[in-house]
Protein backbone atom coordinates (compact mmCIF):
# COMPACT_ATOMS: atom_id res chain seq x y z
CA UNK A 1 0.00 0.00 0.00
CA UNK A 2 1.38 3.36 -0.91
CA UNK A 3 1.10 6.15 1.55
CA UNK A 4 0.24 9.41 -0.21
CA UNK A 5 0.47 12.73 1.57
CA UNK A 6 -2.33 15.12 0.76
CA UNK A 7 -0.14 17.94 1.90
CA UNK A 8 3.50 17.45 1.09
CA UNK A 9 5.00 19.54 3.84
CA UNK A 10 8.12 18.01 5.37
CA UNK A 11 8.86 18.46 9.04
CA UNK A 12 12.18 17.47 10.58
CA UNK A 13 12.29 17.46 14.37
CA UNK A 14 15.58 17.28 16.27
CA UNK A 15 16.99 15.01 13.61
CA UNK A 16 20.38 13.48 14.34
CA UNK A 17 22.44 10.96 12.44
CA UNK A 18 25.63 9.56 13.93
CA UNK A 19 28.15 7.60 11.86
CA UNK A 20 30.90 5.86 13.84
CA UNK A 21 30.58 8.29 16.72
CA UNK A 22 30.56 11.39 14.50
CA UNK A 23 27.34 13.36 14.14
CA UNK A 24 26.85 13.94 10.41
CA UNK A 25 23.54 15.64 11.17
CA UNK A 26 23.26 17.19 14.60
CA UNK A 27 19.87 18.07 16.07
CA UNK A 28 18.36 19.64 12.97
CA UNK A 29 14.78 20.89 13.04
CA UNK A 30 13.40 22.23 9.82
CA UNK A 31 9.94 22.89 8.40
CA UNK A 32 9.58 22.67 4.67
CA UNK A 33 6.24 24.01 3.49
CA UNK A 34 4.04 22.33 0.91
CA UNK A 35 5.21 23.16 -2.63
CA UNK A 36 8.34 24.81 -1.30
CA UNK A 37 11.61 24.65 -3.21
CA UNK A 38 13.98 24.16 -0.29
CA UNK A 39 17.69 24.25 -0.93
CA UNK A 40 20.00 22.50 1.52
CA UNK A 41 23.22 24.42 1.03
CA UNK A 42 26.62 23.86 2.55
CA UNK A 43 30.18 22.74 1.91
CA UNK A 44 31.17 19.10 1.39
CA UNK A 45 30.65 17.00 4.49
CA UNK A 46 28.24 19.41 6.18
CA UNK A 47 25.54 16.74 6.41
CA UNK A 48 23.17 18.07 3.77
CA UNK A 49 23.10 14.86 1.73
CA UNK A 50 22.61 12.78 4.87
CA UNK A 51 19.67 14.99 5.80
CA UNK A 52 18.17 14.52 2.34
CA UNK A 53 18.69 10.77 2.51
CA UNK A 54 16.85 10.64 5.82
CA UNK A 55 13.90 12.43 4.21
CA UNK A 56 14.00 9.93 1.33
CA UNK A 57 14.28 7.00 3.73
CA UNK A 58 17.68 5.82 2.55
CA UNK A 59 19.18 6.48 6.00
CA UNK A 60 17.58 5.82 9.36
CA UNK A 61 17.85 8.72 11.84
CA UNK A 62 19.81 8.00 15.00
CA UNK A 63 17.25 10.14 16.81
CA UNK A 64 14.55 12.64 15.92
CA UNK A 65 11.60 12.45 13.56
CA UNK A 66 10.85 12.89 9.89
CA UNK A 67 7.26 13.70 9.00
CA UNK A 68 5.72 14.08 5.57
CA UNK A 69 2.32 15.69 5.63
CA UNK A 70 1.16 14.86 9.14
CA UNK A 71 2.57 11.38 9.17
CA UNK A 72 5.74 10.35 10.93
CA UNK A 73 7.64 8.33 8.32
CA UNK A 74 10.70 7.17 10.28
CA UNK A 75 9.63 3.55 10.00
CA UNK A 76 8.13 3.73 6.52
CA UNK A 77 10.09 2.25 3.61
CA UNK A 78 11.33 4.70 0.94
CA UNK A 79 8.95 3.28 -1.67
CA UNK A 80 5.95 4.03 0.55
CA UNK A 81 6.93 7.58 1.44
CA UNK A 82 5.73 9.10 -1.84
CA UNK A 83 9.20 10.57 -2.30
CA UNK A 84 11.26 10.46 -5.50
CA UNK A 85 14.98 10.97 -5.62
CA UNK A 86 17.29 12.24 -8.33
CA UNK A 87 20.87 11.18 -7.75
CA UNK A 88 24.04 13.03 -8.59
CA UNK A 89 25.16 10.09 -10.74
CA UNK A 90 21.61 9.84 -12.23
CA UNK A 91 21.59 6.13 -11.32
CA UNK A 92 19.81 5.09 -14.51
CA UNK A 93 19.49 1.38 -15.22
CA UNK A 94 22.12 0.97 -17.94
CA UNK A 95 20.54 -2.15 -19.48
CA UNK A 96 17.09 -0.61 -19.89
CA UNK A 97 15.97 1.81 -22.57
CA UNK A 98 14.99 5.37 -21.69
CA UNK A 99 11.35 4.35 -21.90
CA UNK A 100 11.88 1.36 -19.61
CA UNK A 101 13.84 3.50 -17.16
CA UNK A 102 11.07 6.08 -16.94
CA UNK A 103 8.35 3.45 -16.68
CA UNK A 104 10.15 1.38 -14.11
CA UNK A 105 8.79 2.91 -10.89
CA UNK A 106 5.27 2.45 -12.29
CA UNK A 107 6.01 -1.13 -13.32
CA UNK A 108 7.15 -1.97 -9.80
CA UNK A 109 3.92 -0.46 -8.49
CA UNK A 110 1.90 -2.69 -10.78
CA UNK A 111 0.56 -0.03 -13.15
CA UNK A 112 -0.78 -1.57 -16.35
CA UNK A 113 1.44 -1.64 -19.40
CA UNK A 114 -0.57 0.75 -21.53
CA UNK A 115 -1.06 3.22 -18.73
CA UNK A 116 2.57 3.34 -17.77
CA UNK A 117 3.63 3.71 -21.40
CA UNK A 118 1.31 6.68 -21.67
CA UNK A 119 2.58 8.27 -18.46
CA UNK A 120 6.19 7.67 -19.45
CA UNK A 121 5.48 9.28 -22.82
CA UNK A 122 4.04 12.33 -21.07
CA UNK A 123 6.96 12.62 -18.68
CA UNK A 124 9.37 12.25 -21.59
CA UNK A 125 7.53 14.93 -23.55
CA UNK A 126 7.68 17.29 -20.56
CA UNK A 127 11.44 16.97 -20.52
CA UNK A 128 12.02 16.86 -24.28
CA UNK A 129 13.03 13.21 -24.37
CA UNK A 130 10.48 11.84 -26.82
CA UNK A 131 12.97 11.09 -29.57
CA UNK A 132 15.31 9.21 -27.21
CA UNK A 133 12.80 6.75 -25.75
CA UNK A 134 14.35 3.74 -27.51
CA UNK A 135 17.93 4.52 -26.60
CA UNK A 136 19.95 3.17 -23.71
CA UNK A 137 21.45 5.59 -21.17
CA UNK A 138 24.94 4.87 -22.49
CA UNK A 139 23.96 6.45 -25.80
CA UNK A 140 22.88 9.75 -24.22
CA UNK A 141 24.80 12.87 -23.24
CA UNK A 142 25.11 13.93 -19.60
CA UNK A 143 22.32 16.46 -19.92
CA UNK A 144 19.99 13.95 -21.53
CA UNK A 145 20.70 11.37 -18.83
CA UNK A 146 19.96 14.00 -16.24
CA UNK A 147 16.59 14.64 -17.85
CA UNK A 148 15.83 10.90 -17.94
CA UNK A 149 16.54 10.78 -14.20
CA UNK A 150 14.13 13.68 -13.71
CA UNK A 151 11.51 12.02 -15.90
CA UNK A 152 11.83 8.81 -13.87
CA UNK A 153 11.17 10.89 -10.78
CA UNK A 154 8.22 12.95 -12.05
CA UNK A 155 6.44 10.00 -13.65
CA UNK A 156 5.47 8.85 -10.17
CA UNK A 157 3.96 12.25 -9.34
CA UNK A 158 5.57 12.14 -5.91
CA UNK A 159 4.61 14.46 -3.10
CA UNK A 160 8.26 15.25 -2.41
CA UNK A 161 11.21 15.44 -4.81
CA UNK A 162 14.63 14.91 -3.32
CA UNK A 163 17.56 15.95 -5.48
CA UNK A 164 21.16 15.36 -4.52
CA UNK A 165 23.41 17.73 -6.46
CA UNK A 166 21.72 16.78 -9.72
CA UNK A 167 23.52 19.39 -11.81
CA UNK A 168 27.07 18.89 -10.63
CA UNK A 169 28.04 16.57 -13.48
CA UNK A 170 26.90 18.99 -16.18
CA UNK A 171 28.99 21.62 -17.93
CA UNK A 172 28.44 25.26 -17.04
CA UNK A 173 26.17 26.13 -19.97
CA UNK A 174 23.94 23.11 -19.51
CA UNK A 175 23.82 23.72 -15.79
CA UNK A 176 22.43 27.19 -16.40
CA UNK A 177 19.77 25.87 -18.76
CA UNK A 178 18.79 23.03 -16.48
CA UNK A 179 18.47 25.39 -13.50
CA UNK A 180 15.81 27.30 -15.40
CA UNK A 181 14.09 24.05 -16.42
CA UNK A 182 13.96 22.86 -12.83
CA UNK A 183 12.41 26.12 -11.68
CA UNK A 184 9.81 25.80 -14.42
CA UNK A 185 9.21 22.17 -13.47
CA UNK A 186 8.67 23.15 -9.85
CA UNK A 187 6.16 25.77 -10.90
CA UNK A 188 4.27 23.18 -12.98
CA UNK A 189 4.20 20.34 -10.46
CA UNK A 190 2.36 20.39 -7.19
CA UNK A 191 5.31 18.82 -5.41
CA UNK A 192 7.67 19.93 -2.69
CA UNK A 193 11.30 20.08 -3.81
CA UNK A 194 14.21 19.44 -1.48
CA UNK A 195 17.44 20.14 -3.30
CA UNK A 196 20.98 19.59 -2.04
CA UNK A 197 23.82 21.64 -3.43
CA UNK A 198 27.10 23.23 -2.47
CA UNK A 199 26.68 25.77 -5.27
CA UNK A 200 25.38 29.08 -3.95
CA UNK A 201 24.35 30.18 -7.45
CA UNK A 202 21.90 27.26 -7.61
CA UNK A 203 20.70 28.13 -4.14
CA UNK A 204 20.16 31.79 -4.91
CA UNK A 205 18.51 31.29 -8.31
CA UNK A 206 16.29 28.27 -7.72
CA UNK A 207 15.19 28.09 -4.12
CA UNK A 208 12.20 29.65 -2.50
CA UNK A 209 14.01 28.94 0.76
CA UNK A 210 17.59 28.13 1.61
CA UNK A 211 18.79 26.17 4.62
CA UNK A 212 22.49 26.76 5.12
CA UNK A 213 24.30 23.95 6.94
CA UNK A 214 27.70 23.64 8.49
CA UNK A 215 29.17 20.69 10.40
CA UNK A 216 25.86 18.91 10.66
CA UNK A 217 23.95 21.88 12.05
CA UNK A 218 21.59 24.40 10.55
CA UNK A 219 23.15 27.84 10.38
CA UNK A 220 20.23 29.71 8.92
CA UNK A 221 16.95 29.18 7.10
CA UNK A 222 15.37 31.89 4.99
CA UNK A 223 14.64 33.12 1.53
CA UNK A 224 17.71 33.55 -0.66
CA UNK A 225 17.40 37.31 -0.26
CA UNK A 226 17.23 37.09 3.53
CA UNK A 227 20.18 34.78 3.73
CA UNK A 228 22.19 37.11 1.53
CA UNK A 229 21.08 40.37 3.10
CA UNK A 230 21.02 39.33 6.76
CA UNK A 231 23.37 36.37 7.26
CA UNK A 232 22.85 34.87 10.69
CA UNK A 233 26.47 33.94 11.23
CA UNK A 234 29.97 34.58 9.95
CA UNK A 235 29.81 31.21 8.24
CA UNK A 236 26.70 32.10 6.25
CA UNK A 237 28.09 35.56 5.49
CA UNK A 238 31.22 34.10 4.00
CA UNK A 239 29.64 31.08 2.33
CA UNK A 240 27.11 33.06 0.32
CA UNK A 241 28.29 35.72 -2.07
CA UNK A 242 31.18 35.80 -4.54
CA UNK A 243 33.64 37.02 -3.56
CA UNK A 244 32.73 36.30 0.07
CA UNK A 245 31.90 38.94 2.64
CA UNK A 246 34.88 40.70 4.24
CA UNK A 247 34.88 40.10 7.99
CA UNK A 248 37.20 42.35 9.99
CA UNK A 249 38.40 41.76 13.51
CA UNK A 250 37.26 43.68 16.56
CA UNK A 251 38.33 47.30 16.73
CA UNK A 252 39.30 47.96 13.13
CA UNK A 253 36.14 49.59 11.84
CA UNK A 254 34.00 50.54 14.81
CA UNK A 255 34.71 50.93 18.43
CA UNK A 256 32.64 48.03 19.76
CA UNK A 257 33.56 44.44 20.68
CA UNK A 258 32.11 42.94 17.48
CA UNK A 259 33.32 41.44 14.22
CA UNK A 260 32.36 43.62 11.30
CA UNK A 261 31.27 42.17 7.99
CA UNK A 262 30.81 44.06 4.77
CA UNK A 263 30.22 42.75 1.25
CA UNK A 264 32.85 43.62 -1.37
CA UNK A 265 30.31 45.63 -3.37
CA UNK A 266 29.55 47.81 -0.35
CA UNK A 267 33.13 48.60 0.55
CA UNK A 268 34.19 51.92 -0.96
CA UNK A 269 37.52 53.40 -1.94
CA UNK A 270 37.73 56.70 -0.13
CA UNK A 271 40.87 58.88 -0.30
CA UNK A 272 39.86 60.70 2.89
CA UNK A 273 39.32 57.59 4.99
CA UNK A 274 41.52 56.90 7.95
CA UNK A 275 41.57 53.18 7.28
CA UNK A 276 44.56 52.96 4.95
CA UNK A 277 45.66 49.90 2.98
CA UNK A 278 47.94 48.86 0.15
CA UNK A 279 46.55 47.21 -2.98
CA UNK A 280 47.97 43.69 -3.45
CA UNK A 281 46.09 42.51 -6.54
CA UNK A 282 43.66 43.90 -9.10
CA UNK A 283 41.42 41.55 -11.11
CA UNK A 284 39.60 42.99 -14.13
CA UNK A 285 36.64 40.75 -14.90
CA UNK A 286 34.99 42.93 -17.55
CA UNK A 287 31.75 43.86 -15.86
CA UNK A 288 33.49 44.41 -12.53
CA UNK A 289 36.89 44.83 -11.01
CA UNK A 290 38.07 43.18 -7.79
CA UNK A 291 40.65 45.04 -5.75
CA UNK A 292 42.45 42.94 -3.13
CA UNK A 293 44.15 44.56 -0.18
CA UNK A 294 44.98 43.93 3.47
CA UNK A 295 43.70 45.66 6.55
CA UNK A 296 46.19 44.69 9.20
CA UNK A 297 46.46 40.92 8.81
CA UNK A 298 43.00 40.57 7.29
CA UNK A 299 42.62 40.30 3.50
CA UNK A 300 39.77 42.35 2.09
CA UNK A 301 38.22 42.60 -1.37
CA UNK A 302 36.55 45.64 -2.88
CA UNK A 303 34.26 45.21 -5.86
CA UNK A 304 34.12 48.11 -8.30
CA UNK A 305 31.69 48.40 -11.18
CA UNK A 306 34.03 50.10 -13.62
CA UNK A 307 37.60 49.64 -14.70
CA UNK A 308 38.39 53.35 -14.85
CA UNK A 309 38.49 54.04 -11.15
CA UNK A 310 40.56 50.99 -10.29
CA UNK A 311 43.82 51.59 -8.45
CA UNK A 312 47.01 49.74 -9.32
CA UNK A 313 48.95 47.19 -7.32
CA UNK A 314 51.01 48.93 -4.67
CA UNK A 315 48.76 52.01 -4.48
CA UNK A 316 47.94 53.32 -1.04
CA UNK A 317 44.16 53.65 -0.77
CA UNK A 318 41.64 54.50 1.92
CA UNK A 319 38.59 52.32 2.62
CA UNK A 320 35.27 53.51 3.92
CA UNK A 321 32.63 51.27 5.49
CA UNK A 322 29.11 52.70 4.98
CA UNK A 323 27.32 52.02 8.22
CA UNK A 324 24.06 50.83 6.70
CA UNK A 325 25.88 47.96 5.01
CA UNK A 326 27.70 46.68 8.07
CA UNK A 327 26.91 43.26 9.52
CA UNK A 328 27.91 42.77 13.14
CA UNK A 329 28.80 39.42 14.64
CA UNK A 330 29.58 38.29 18.15
CA UNK A 331 33.30 37.35 18.25
CA UNK A 332 32.62 34.51 20.69
CA UNK A 333 29.71 32.78 18.95
CA UNK A 334 30.14 34.15 15.40
CA UNK A 335 26.38 34.78 15.43
CA UNK A 336 24.81 37.96 14.14
CA UNK A 337 24.16 40.75 16.62
CA UNK A 338 21.76 43.47 15.64
CA UNK A 339 23.15 46.96 15.74
Amino acid at each position, binding site marked *: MSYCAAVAAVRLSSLTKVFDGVAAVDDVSLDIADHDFMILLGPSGCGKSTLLRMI*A*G*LEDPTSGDVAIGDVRVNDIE*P*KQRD*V*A*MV*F*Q*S*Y*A*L*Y*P*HKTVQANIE*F*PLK*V*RGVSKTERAEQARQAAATLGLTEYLDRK*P*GQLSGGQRQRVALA*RAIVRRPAVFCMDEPLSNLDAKLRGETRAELVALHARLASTFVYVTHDQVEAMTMGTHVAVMSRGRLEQVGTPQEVYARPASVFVAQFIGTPPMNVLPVGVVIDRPVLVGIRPEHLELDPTSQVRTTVTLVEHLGHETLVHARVGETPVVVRLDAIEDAPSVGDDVGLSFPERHLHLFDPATSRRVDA
Partner: protein
Amino acid sequence: MATSTMPRGWRLAGRYTLLIALAIVVLFPIWVMLVGAFKPGNKVLQNPLLPTHVTLDTLREAWRDGNLGRALVNSTIVALIVTVAQVVTAVLSAYAFAFLRFPGRTFVFGVFLATLLVPFEATVVVNRSTVQDLGWLNSYQGLAVPFLATAFGTFLVRQVFLTLPKDLREAARMDGLGHLGFLREVAVPLARPTLGALALFGFLSTWNQYLWPTTISTDDDWNTVQSGLRALAQAQIDKPNLVIAGTVIVALPIFVILLVFQRQLVRGLTAGAVKG
Protein backbone atom coordinates in the same frame (compact mmCIF):
# COMPACT_ATOMS: atom_id res chain seq x y z
CA MET B 1 53.76 1.69 -31.18
CA ALA B 2 56.66 -0.32 -32.49
CA THR B 3 59.03 1.81 -34.51
CA SER B 4 60.19 -1.05 -36.68
CA THR B 5 61.69 -0.10 -40.03
CA MET B 6 60.57 -3.42 -41.52
CA PRO B 7 57.99 -2.99 -44.27
CA ARG B 8 54.42 -3.62 -43.19
CA GLY B 9 54.07 -6.69 -45.42
CA TRP B 10 57.00 -8.47 -43.78
CA ARG B 11 55.72 -7.71 -40.33
CA LEU B 12 52.35 -9.18 -41.23
CA ALA B 13 54.01 -12.24 -42.73
CA GLY B 14 56.04 -12.74 -39.56
CA ARG B 15 52.98 -12.39 -37.39
CA TYR B 16 50.95 -14.87 -39.41
CA THR B 17 53.82 -17.37 -39.52
CA LEU B 18 53.90 -17.32 -35.73
CA LEU B 19 50.12 -17.65 -35.47
CA ILE B 20 50.07 -20.54 -37.94
CA ALA B 21 52.81 -22.33 -36.01
CA LEU B 22 50.84 -21.95 -32.77
CA ALA B 23 47.65 -23.10 -34.48
CA ILE B 24 49.43 -26.25 -35.68
CA VAL B 25 50.57 -27.02 -32.14
CA VAL B 26 47.00 -26.72 -30.91
CA LEU B 27 45.27 -28.46 -33.78
CA PHE B 28 47.75 -31.36 -34.31
CA PRO B 29 46.36 -33.68 -31.59
CA ILE B 30 42.82 -32.94 -32.71
CA TRP B 31 43.76 -33.84 -36.27
CA VAL B 32 45.39 -37.09 -35.17
CA MET B 33 42.27 -37.90 -33.16
CA LEU B 34 39.94 -37.25 -36.08
CA VAL B 35 42.07 -39.27 -38.50
CA GLY B 36 42.23 -42.17 -36.04
CA ALA B 37 38.50 -42.10 -35.36
CA PHE B 38 37.58 -42.47 -39.02
CA LYS B 39 39.93 -45.40 -39.72
CA PRO B 40 39.34 -49.12 -39.19
CA GLY B 41 41.30 -50.53 -36.25
CA ASN B 42 43.82 -52.44 -38.27
CA LYS B 43 44.86 -49.40 -40.32
CA VAL B 44 45.22 -46.94 -37.51
CA LEU B 45 48.99 -47.20 -37.28
CA GLN B 46 49.56 -46.87 -41.04
CA ASN B 47 50.06 -43.24 -42.09
CA PRO B 48 48.62 -42.00 -38.81
CA LEU B 49 48.46 -38.43 -40.12
CA LEU B 50 46.58 -39.17 -43.36
CA PRO B 51 42.87 -39.95 -43.60
CA THR B 52 43.08 -43.18 -45.59
CA HIS B 53 40.36 -45.90 -45.50
CA VAL B 54 37.72 -43.52 -44.12
CA THR B 55 34.90 -45.38 -42.32
CA LEU B 56 32.24 -44.73 -39.69
CA ASP B 57 32.48 -48.27 -38.34
CA THR B 58 34.92 -47.36 -35.58
CA LEU B 59 32.64 -44.59 -34.31
CA ARG B 60 29.67 -46.99 -34.35
CA GLU B 61 31.62 -49.61 -32.50
CA ALA B 62 32.78 -47.14 -29.86
CA TRP B 63 29.23 -45.85 -29.40
CA ARG B 64 27.95 -49.39 -28.86
CA ASP B 65 30.77 -50.93 -26.82
CA GLY B 66 31.22 -47.91 -24.56
CA ASN B 67 27.49 -47.46 -24.01
CA LEU B 68 28.24 -43.84 -24.90
CA GLY B 69 24.62 -42.91 -25.59
CA ARG B 70 23.74 -43.52 -21.98
CA ALA B 71 26.97 -41.78 -20.84
CA LEU B 72 26.11 -38.72 -22.93
CA VAL B 73 22.65 -38.54 -21.39
CA ASN B 74 24.09 -38.91 -17.88
CA SER B 75 26.72 -36.27 -18.46
CA THR B 76 24.22 -33.85 -19.98
CA ILE B 77 21.82 -34.21 -17.06
CA VAL B 78 24.52 -33.87 -14.42
CA ALA B 79 26.21 -30.95 -16.20
CA LEU B 80 22.89 -29.10 -16.57
CA ILE B 81 21.98 -29.60 -12.90
CA VAL B 82 25.41 -28.46 -11.76
CA THR B 83 25.46 -25.47 -14.13
CA VAL B 84 22.08 -24.14 -13.11
CA ALA B 85 22.75 -24.73 -9.42
CA GLN B 86 26.18 -23.12 -9.55
CA VAL B 87 24.84 -19.99 -11.20
CA VAL B 88 21.94 -19.73 -8.76
CA THR B 89 24.04 -20.31 -5.64
CA ALA B 90 26.78 -18.00 -6.90
CA VAL B 91 24.30 -15.19 -7.60
CA LEU B 92 22.57 -15.50 -4.24
CA SER B 93 25.71 -15.79 -2.14
CA ALA B 94 27.51 -13.09 -4.13
CA TYR B 95 24.56 -10.78 -3.56
CA ALA B 96 24.76 -11.33 0.17
CA PHE B 97 28.49 -10.67 0.25
CA ALA B 98 28.24 -7.64 -2.02
CA PHE B 99 25.10 -5.88 -0.79
CA LEU B 100 24.05 -7.08 2.65
CA ARG B 101 25.70 -6.03 5.87
CA PHE B 102 25.83 -8.74 8.48
CA PRO B 103 28.19 -9.51 11.33
CA GLY B 104 31.19 -11.59 10.27
CA ARG B 105 30.68 -10.90 6.58
CA THR B 106 34.39 -10.47 5.83
CA PHE B 107 35.31 -13.52 7.88
CA VAL B 108 32.71 -15.75 6.23
CA PHE B 109 33.80 -14.56 2.81
CA GLY B 110 37.39 -15.36 3.77
CA VAL B 111 36.37 -18.88 4.73
CA PHE B 112 34.57 -19.18 1.38
CA LEU B 113 37.68 -18.14 -0.49
CA ALA B 114 39.87 -20.43 1.59
CA THR B 115 38.00 -23.43 0.21
CA LEU B 116 39.52 -22.55 -3.16
CA LEU B 117 42.87 -23.57 -1.71
CA VAL B 118 41.69 -27.11 -0.97
CA PRO B 119 42.15 -29.30 -4.07
CA PHE B 120 39.24 -31.58 -4.89
CA GLU B 121 41.53 -34.61 -4.71
CA ALA B 122 42.05 -33.89 -1.01
CA THR B 123 38.35 -34.21 -0.27
CA VAL B 124 37.40 -36.98 -2.64
CA VAL B 125 37.71 -39.79 -0.09
CA VAL B 126 35.55 -38.01 2.48
CA ASN B 127 33.01 -37.06 -0.15
CA ARG B 128 32.90 -40.62 -1.43
CA SER B 129 32.13 -41.98 2.02
CA THR B 130 29.50 -39.29 2.63
CA VAL B 131 27.81 -40.06 -0.66
CA GLN B 132 27.97 -43.77 0.08
CA ASP B 133 26.42 -43.24 3.54
CA LEU B 134 23.60 -41.32 1.88
CA GLY B 135 23.06 -44.23 -0.49
CA TRP B 136 23.81 -42.03 -3.47
CA LEU B 137 26.36 -44.19 -5.28
CA ASN B 138 25.26 -44.66 -8.89
CA SER B 139 22.83 -41.77 -8.87
CA TYR B 140 22.44 -38.31 -10.34
CA GLN B 141 22.41 -36.70 -6.92
CA GLY B 142 25.67 -38.45 -6.09
CA LEU B 143 27.23 -37.14 -9.27
CA ALA B 144 25.91 -33.60 -8.93
CA VAL B 145 25.40 -32.57 -5.30
CA PRO B 146 29.06 -32.06 -4.29
CA PHE B 147 29.37 -29.41 -7.03
CA LEU B 148 26.21 -27.36 -6.60
CA ALA B 149 28.07 -24.39 -5.17
CA THR B 150 31.57 -23.08 -5.82
CA ALA B 151 33.59 -20.44 -4.04
CA PHE B 152 34.98 -19.44 -7.41
CA GLY B 153 31.52 -18.62 -8.73
CA THR B 154 30.63 -16.63 -5.63
CA PHE B 155 33.88 -14.71 -5.88
CA LEU B 156 33.49 -14.00 -9.59
CA VAL B 157 29.91 -12.76 -9.36
CA ARG B 158 30.60 -10.78 -6.18
CA GLN B 159 33.34 -8.88 -8.00
CA VAL B 160 30.86 -7.90 -10.71
CA PHE B 161 28.20 -6.92 -8.19
CA LEU B 162 30.72 -4.73 -6.39
CA THR B 163 31.20 -2.72 -9.58
CA LEU B 164 27.51 -1.77 -9.58
CA PRO B 165 27.17 1.77 -8.25
CA LYS B 166 25.60 2.14 -4.81
CA ASP B 167 23.28 4.76 -6.27
CA LEU B 168 21.77 2.10 -8.53
CA ARG B 169 20.78 0.00 -5.52
CA GLU B 170 19.31 3.04 -3.83
CA ALA B 171 17.48 4.21 -6.94
CA ALA B 172 15.94 0.76 -7.15
CA ARG B 173 14.97 1.03 -3.49
CA MET B 174 13.29 4.37 -4.14
CA ASP B 175 11.52 2.83 -7.11
CA GLY B 176 10.14 0.18 -4.80
CA LEU B 177 12.36 -2.86 -5.35
CA GLY B 178 13.37 -5.14 -2.51
CA HIS B 179 16.46 -7.33 -2.52
CA LEU B 180 15.09 -10.05 -4.79
CA GLY B 181 13.55 -7.47 -7.10
CA PHE B 182 16.84 -5.63 -7.42
CA LEU B 183 18.62 -8.91 -8.02
CA ARG B 184 16.19 -9.93 -10.75
CA GLU B 185 15.66 -6.58 -12.44
CA VAL B 186 19.06 -4.95 -12.15
CA ALA B 187 21.95 -6.98 -10.75
CA VAL B 188 21.51 -10.19 -12.75
CA PRO B 189 20.85 -8.49 -16.11
CA LEU B 190 23.94 -6.36 -15.62
CA ALA B 191 26.06 -9.37 -14.66
CA ARG B 192 24.83 -11.46 -17.59
CA PRO B 193 28.13 -11.76 -19.48
CA THR B 194 29.86 -13.01 -16.36
CA LEU B 195 27.01 -15.37 -15.50
CA GLY B 196 27.21 -16.76 -19.04
CA ALA B 197 30.90 -17.40 -18.66
CA LEU B 198 30.33 -18.96 -15.24
CA ALA B 199 27.64 -21.24 -16.66
CA LEU B 200 29.91 -22.30 -19.48
CA PHE B 201 32.75 -23.07 -17.09
CA GLY B 202 30.42 -24.99 -14.83
CA PHE B 203 29.15 -27.05 -17.75
CA LEU B 204 32.59 -27.74 -19.21
CA SER B 205 34.23 -28.65 -15.93
CA THR B 206 31.39 -31.02 -15.03
CA TRP B 207 31.44 -32.57 -18.48
CA ASN B 208 35.16 -33.14 -18.20
CA GLN B 209 35.09 -34.62 -14.69
CA TYR B 210 36.90 -37.89 -14.48
CA LEU B 211 37.94 -38.61 -10.92
CA TRP B 212 34.56 -38.14 -9.20
CA PRO B 213 32.37 -40.14 -11.62
CA THR B 214 34.89 -42.99 -11.67
CA THR B 215 34.90 -42.90 -7.87
CA ILE B 216 31.17 -43.17 -7.32
CA SER B 217 29.90 -45.06 -10.39
CA THR B 218 30.24 -48.76 -9.83
CA ASP B 219 27.60 -49.58 -12.42
CA ASP B 220 28.29 -48.91 -16.11
CA ASP B 221 24.80 -47.42 -16.48
CA TRP B 222 25.95 -44.53 -14.30
CA ASN B 223 29.04 -43.76 -16.32
CA THR B 224 29.46 -40.20 -17.47
CA VAL B 225 31.32 -39.58 -20.71
CA GLN B 226 34.74 -39.60 -19.09
CA SER B 227 34.22 -42.69 -16.98
CA GLY B 228 32.55 -44.25 -20.03
CA LEU B 229 35.73 -43.69 -22.03
CA ARG B 230 37.75 -45.27 -19.27
CA ALA B 231 35.47 -48.29 -19.31
CA LEU B 232 35.83 -48.48 -23.09
CA ALA B 233 39.62 -48.32 -22.84
CA GLN B 234 39.71 -51.09 -20.25
CA ALA B 235 37.31 -53.35 -22.10
CA GLN B 236 38.84 -52.91 -25.56
CA ILE B 237 42.48 -52.68 -24.66
CA ASP B 238 43.51 -54.21 -28.00
CA LYS B 239 41.65 -51.58 -30.07
CA PRO B 240 43.25 -48.24 -29.27
CA ASN B 241 41.34 -46.31 -31.88
CA LEU B 242 37.99 -47.21 -30.29
CA VAL B 243 38.94 -44.87 -27.46
CA ILE B 244 40.00 -42.29 -30.03
CA ALA B 245 36.59 -42.56 -31.70
CA GLY B 246 34.88 -42.38 -28.32
CA THR B 247 36.83 -39.21 -27.55
CA VAL B 248 35.56 -37.64 -30.76
CA ILE B 249 31.99 -38.50 -29.80
CA VAL B 250 32.19 -37.02 -26.31
CA ALA B 251 34.11 -33.94 -27.46
CA LEU B 252 31.56 -33.12 -30.14
CA PRO B 253 28.90 -31.52 -27.88
CA ILE B 254 31.54 -29.41 -26.17
CA PHE B 255 32.82 -28.34 -29.54
CA VAL B 256 29.38 -27.18 -30.58
CA ILE B 257 28.79 -25.35 -27.29
CA LEU B 258 32.10 -23.54 -27.59
CA LEU B 259 31.39 -22.52 -31.17
CA VAL B 260 27.98 -21.13 -30.19
CA PHE B 261 29.03 -19.41 -26.98
CA GLN B 262 32.65 -18.41 -27.56
CA ARG B 263 31.72 -14.75 -27.86
CA GLN B 264 29.92 -14.90 -24.52
CA LEU B 265 32.85 -16.69 -22.92
CA VAL B 266 35.41 -14.12 -24.01
CA ARG B 267 33.17 -11.18 -23.15
CA GLY B 268 32.42 -12.52 -19.69
CA LEU B 269 36.06 -12.99 -18.88
CA THR B 270 37.30 -9.71 -20.28
CA ALA B 271 34.46 -7.35 -19.49
CA GLY B 272 33.17 -8.02 -15.99
CA ALA B 273 32.61 -4.35 -15.33
CA VAL B 274 29.46 -2.59 -16.39
CA LYS B 275 29.49 0.39 -18.64
CA GLY B 276 27.50 3.32 -17.32
